[in-house]
């Protein structure tokens, strides 16, 4: 049920998504729901079947379909409609966004890694020949080897080290230091000294050390990038939510389709059942039922009266209405939520990673030690080249290869373990943050509950009554009707169904009798609770009441008590009304809770907690939680959450269970301990290696071996996290 599933929104307005190049037009479409070979074959064949389309290729990993045609013969709307007709959600994809900064970064890292790998293998082959057989070589042969090594290693190392140079440059420009400063220094200096050695016919050159350093560090960087990039694909859907179209009623009564962002206050917009309000407005002619869960988190649809406001993002589930726009889309609620989200992400980017904090202590130590050693050898009367060699040996031997691998190695193992337990971790540093939290704040609807109403009293309703009610229910998109249809299982849908706004459905049977499904008033029943019941009445028979409730997640109470055992404070913030919130808090065992909280209050509450020195974990699903999710120290969203919330969250739950949250905190604490151990190992290694290198006792071969050994120890230590968890 895409927001744009109505036929009327498919106009030629999509032409702005079409890219033309050399007479070939391309359209990129984000397709949701494609999973298998069958889907690929169906979608590609379907799109290629459109007259004029010359090519269609679906990328299953990213869910992106690229369609091509010559000239302007094909309407982009026809392509999108074809994909939707095949049963998949489809949104045009803004090609300007495709090569976003993240993808470019990944591509550059991969290219650097490949080039560094080539350089390492080739240069090591040459240089090992010199180390092992250098004494037997003539000076001319050795020089040839050095120059060949230089010819390969200088360009490959400089190319492959771009990410380090760029990062070090950015840090220095801000008068800060990070790991990349000593790394860049070691790479540049060892290349420079090696060139000097080669020109002066010296014995020792470090060409292989420089390129191998870049190679080992790039492996860590690329692992880190893969972690962060894993869930990036969701980003496009938030934009899609905003780029919706609207049907504006012109003063002369004609209806035209325009982009929602062109709407101005005073415009009148037609909203059919199932359509999302593109901007804030008020209902003009009549009231309707609306699903406002995106805005408030309230699960049951509410009746919005004539003249009452309808917020952007609400979905009309009752009769079609006319909405008088009161705010531009950029001033509407969805836009507000996007801004909250951006603000939160900026606040979080201030977080300093463990590795960078280590670097702050490490960088002055390493550079200081190297310059002291340079000075010491000079004062002791050694030639400049010997002093430089020993100083660079210190830089290389202390170079944080082990540190560069230490953190990503632990994070890759930890996220792999959590993935198997049903939790997708989107960024490695989220685990570091998760290890610090002391308060967990839960949303109610869709987070502690499953987010969809379930029929409660199915057992007390005769089977034939349930089936007859379900026949009518199957024709409706109303959430309660859908829950009823779900409870009854598959079956036929009634024909001749009439919908009466704000009341219910009426079906005329073959025998002339009339069956009704809807509100208590519609079926002559005694209303108990408007939002959570449906009534059914056959002819003039006795009305039957169907009671619904949003089911609690099966292990909610268990997960909450597991978190409490870890010493974490629990709170619940719900946009829902007081009574259901109180009931749920009791079931889940939560003492601190608030009901009727709107998105801004949620975000403000999180900020207040953090200002008081707490580290907050936010667990929420709705778009109304997105701001709070982005603002919290760490955030988790269920897999059923709105795209924007999954995007804002650091971690996403794959299944219905909440237990992985408690396990994630446990794993995060273990991972943090392992990272600290790795730092300690690296520190011990450096304390031993620096004096040896400072005394000039280290040959490049030993330095390389020591470097590799320390990386290996750190990686093996990280793997301890994977041990013993397949239980």
């Amino acid at each position, binding site marked *: 049920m895409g927001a744009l599933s109505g036929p009327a929104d498919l106009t030629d307005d999509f032409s702005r998504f079409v890219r033309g190049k050399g007479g070939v037009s391309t359209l990129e479409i984000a397709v949701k729901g494609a999973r298998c070979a069958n889907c690929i074959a169906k979608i590609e*064949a379907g799109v290629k079947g459109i007259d004029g389309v010359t090519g269609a290729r*679906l*990328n*299953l*990993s990213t869910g992106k379909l690229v369609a091509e045609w010559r000239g302007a013969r094909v309407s982009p709307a026809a392509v999108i409609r074809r994909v939707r007709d095949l049963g998949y959600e489809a949104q045009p994809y803004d090609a300007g966004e495709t090569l976003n900064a993240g993808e470019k970064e990944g591509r550059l890292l991969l290219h650097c890694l*490949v080039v560094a790998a080539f350089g390492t*293998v080739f240069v090591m082959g040459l240089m090992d020949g010199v180390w092992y057989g250098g004494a037997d070589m003539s000076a001319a042969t050795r020089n040839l080897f050095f120059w060949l090594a230089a010819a390969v290693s200088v360009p490959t190392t400089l190319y492959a080290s771009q990410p380090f140079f760029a990062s070090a440059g950015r840090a220095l420009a801000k008068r800060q230091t990070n790991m990349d400063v000593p790394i860049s220094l070691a790479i540049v200096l060892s290349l420079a000294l090696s060139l000097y050695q080669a020109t002066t016919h010296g014995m020792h050159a470090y060409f292989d050390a420089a390129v191998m350093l870049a190679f080992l560090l790039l492996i860590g960087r690329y692992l880190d990038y893969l972690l962060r990039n894993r869930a990036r694909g969701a980003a496009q859907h938030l934009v899609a939510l905003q780029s919706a179209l609207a049907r504006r009623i012109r003063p002369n009564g004609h209806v035209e389709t325009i982009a929602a962002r062109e709407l101005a206050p005073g415009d009148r917009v037609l909203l059919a059942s199932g359509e999302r309000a593109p901007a804030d407005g008020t209902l003009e002619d009549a009231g309707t039922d609306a699903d406002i869960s995106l805005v408030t988190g309230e699960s049951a649809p509410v009746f919005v009266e004539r003249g009452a406001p309808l917020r952007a993002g609400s979905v009309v589930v009752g009769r079609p209405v006319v909405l008088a726009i009161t705010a531009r889309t950029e001033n509407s609620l969805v836009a507000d939520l996007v801004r909250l989200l951006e603000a939160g992400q900026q606040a979080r980017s201030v977080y300093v990673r463990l590795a960078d904090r280590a670097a702050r202590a490490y960088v002055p130590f390493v550079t200081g030690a190297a310059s002291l050693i340079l000075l010491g050898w000079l004062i002791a009367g050694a030639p400049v080249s010997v002093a430089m060699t020993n100083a660079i040996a210190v830089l290389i031997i202390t170079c944080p290869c082990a540190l560069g691998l230490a953190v990503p190695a632990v994070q890759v193992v930890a996220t792999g373990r959590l993935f198997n337990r049903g939790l997708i971790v989107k960024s490695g540093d989220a685990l570091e943050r998760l290890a610090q939290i002391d308060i967990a704040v839960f949303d109610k609807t869709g987070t502690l509950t499953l987010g969809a109403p379930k029929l409660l009293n199915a057992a007390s309703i005769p089977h034939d009554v349930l089936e007859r009610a379900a026949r009518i229910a199957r024709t409706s998109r109303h959430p309660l009707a859908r829950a009823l249809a779900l409870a009854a299982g598959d079956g036929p849908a009634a024909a001749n169904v009439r919908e009466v706004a704000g009341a219910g459905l009426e079906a005329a049977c073959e025998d002339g009798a009339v069956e009704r499904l809807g509100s208590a008033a519609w079926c002559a029943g005694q209303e108990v609770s408007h939002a959570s019941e449906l009534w059914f009445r056959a002819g003039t028979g006795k009305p039957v009441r169907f009671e619904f409730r949003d089911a609690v997640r099966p292990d909610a109470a268990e997960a909450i008590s597991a978190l409490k055992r870890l010493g974490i404070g629990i709170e619940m913030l719900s946009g829902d009304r007081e009574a259901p919130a109180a009931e749920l808090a009791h079931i889940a065992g939560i003492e601190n809770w608030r009901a009727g909280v709107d998105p801004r209050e949620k975000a403000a509450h999180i900020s207040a907690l953090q200002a008081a020195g707490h580290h907050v974990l936010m667990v929420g699903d709705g778009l109304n939680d997105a701001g709070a999710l982005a603002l919290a120290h760490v955030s988790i969203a269920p897999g059923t959450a709105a795209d924007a919330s999954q995007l804002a969250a650091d971690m996403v739950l794959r299944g219905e269970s909440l237990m992985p949250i408690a396990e994630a905190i446990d794993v995060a604490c273990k991972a943090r301990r392992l990272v600290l151990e790795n730092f300690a190992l690296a520190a011990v290694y450096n304390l031993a290696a620096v004096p040896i290198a400072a005394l000039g006792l280290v040959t490049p071969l030993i330095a390389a071996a020591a470097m590799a050994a320390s990386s290996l120890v750190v990686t093996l230590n990280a793997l301890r996290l994977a041990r013993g968890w397949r239980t």
Partner: protein
Amino acid sequence: MAHLNGIALIIAAALAFGLGALGLLLWSLGSGQYDDLEGAAERILIDDPDN
């Protein structure tokens, strides 16, 4: 001098092979062969001879 010529030849050949492999890998990365590993795994199941 004969053995030095042999070494020069071998090194030149190794460099050529290495650069060739590097070029091929960069080309395959650039042409998008690794962009959709999931899709590639599924596509072998499609019967259509056009694909």
